[in-house]
């Protein structure tokens, strides 16, 4: 396994930190709009529906600073971002007012996934094939897409919080 600190270029870590901050601000903008426009302000009110819709969460278990396993962590980071990219695409048709914000969020998540994948390739730890998107939840009503938007964004923010802590730890001089 790679030694975490030395093998990741500082510019990669700084770019990742910048991208995480951007995605967090995109996510916050979407959460604000979902709350203001549709009064869907609390993800805790939608947990049961989330189970029913099958909205997955992704672990970052290889990333805790004590026992950081770099290849596993980068791979989990990439597959998590790749999953959220798919989940955000599944929200297509959410509503004309929200679409631009969801599009921006989805593009930024996709670019961050590319940054991580590119770095895994540079380190020679990238799998031969890009992962393929698994089954996505199907949203059958405007309400389900909006509720899905609240849940996906909330999960994404928690995922990014862990990622940010890990990247900050790695970026320390």
């Amino acid at each position: 396994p790679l030694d975490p600190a030395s093998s990741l270029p500082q510019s990669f870590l700084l770019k990742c930190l910048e991208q995480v901050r951007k995605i967090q601000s995109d996510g916050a903008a979407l959460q604000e709009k979902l709350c203001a426009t549709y009064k869907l302000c609390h993800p805790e009110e939608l947990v049961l529906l989330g189970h029913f819709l099958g909205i997955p969460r992704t672990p970052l278990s290889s990333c805790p600073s004590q026992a950081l396993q770099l290849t596993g962590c980068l791979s989990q980071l990439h597959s998590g971002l790749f999953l959220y990219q798919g989940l955000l695409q599944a929200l297509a048709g959410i509503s004309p007012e929200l679409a631009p914000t969801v599009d921006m969020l989805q593009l930024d998540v996709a670019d961050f996934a590319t940054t991580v994948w590119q770095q895994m390739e540079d380190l020679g730890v990238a799998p031969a094939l890009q992962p393929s998107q698994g089954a996505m939840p199907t949203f059958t009503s405007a309400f389900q897409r909006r509720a899905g938007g609240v849940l996906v964004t909330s999960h994404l923010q928690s995922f990014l919080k862990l990622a940010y802590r890990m990247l900050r730890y790695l970026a320390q001089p």
Partner: protein
Amino acid sequence: ECGHISLSTPIVRLGDSVTASCVINQNCSRLGLDAQILWKLGPELQPGGRQQRLPDGTQESTITLPHFNHTQAFLSCCLNWSNSLQILDQVELRAGYPPAIPHNLSCLMNLTTYSLTCQWEPGPETHLPTSFTLKSFQSCQNQKDPIPDCVAEDGQSHCSILRKHLILYQNMGIWVQAENALGTSTSPQLCLDPMDVVKLEPPMLWTVGPSHAAAPAQPGCLLLHWEPWKPSLHMSQKCELRHQPQLGGANWTLEGPLPTKTLQYELCGLLPATAYTLQMRCIRWPLPGHWSNWSPSLKLRTAEQVPI
């Protein structure tokens, strides 16, 4: 679906009642069969849901909101689950009024764009998305040769019919139709020839400068010339001139009818050595039309009285 709300109608008249029912299917309510369905209107819980178990084991709750007087609100169907209120479905309710009859429909023909712009008063706020469509036919008597609908932009009370849809010098029938989820209303029909509702721009009014060959203006007279608005040169018109000495409280004096165009006109009968404000307007004539606005003011001073 986990929970599904069905509504009598998502849009009602303000103050009318709304009835909704929510069905929770079995595999969603993991709380056992007697899970109690709760309703929220916006942030507030709504009592009065009548719940029953359907033959297929699903639970259904029906609620009636007697006088719905919000213009917009979200109605949520919820369950209590491990001590937190879970939203299972949500619908948007809207209330308002059917559109009133649009009134004061009037049209003006614009000779720069050669389009016919009609405007109207939409009437009181309906609180609902309401579309206004200008309907027109190339005759007043029947609805033959329809002209394509002219749909006003959101919130606008005017629409412009392009030149290619117009037959100038022929009467056409025009009215405006207002429509929203609660109904449709139609204004009375206007019957007009677009060329009879041309709104002219004011003529251009100048003084004939001293350099001009003409004799200088005599005391109490002013030498003027004017030209009609260029795009209306082909229309025979008549014009009016009004003038007012710049003395407090003086009234306008009207001169007219005047020919549409003159290279030089001597306006006399004025006070000598006095500053005057002059304006002019024209109207298509003898064929029907609208007066143009008064032209921008021309400020001139009459010559001193020569001591005899």
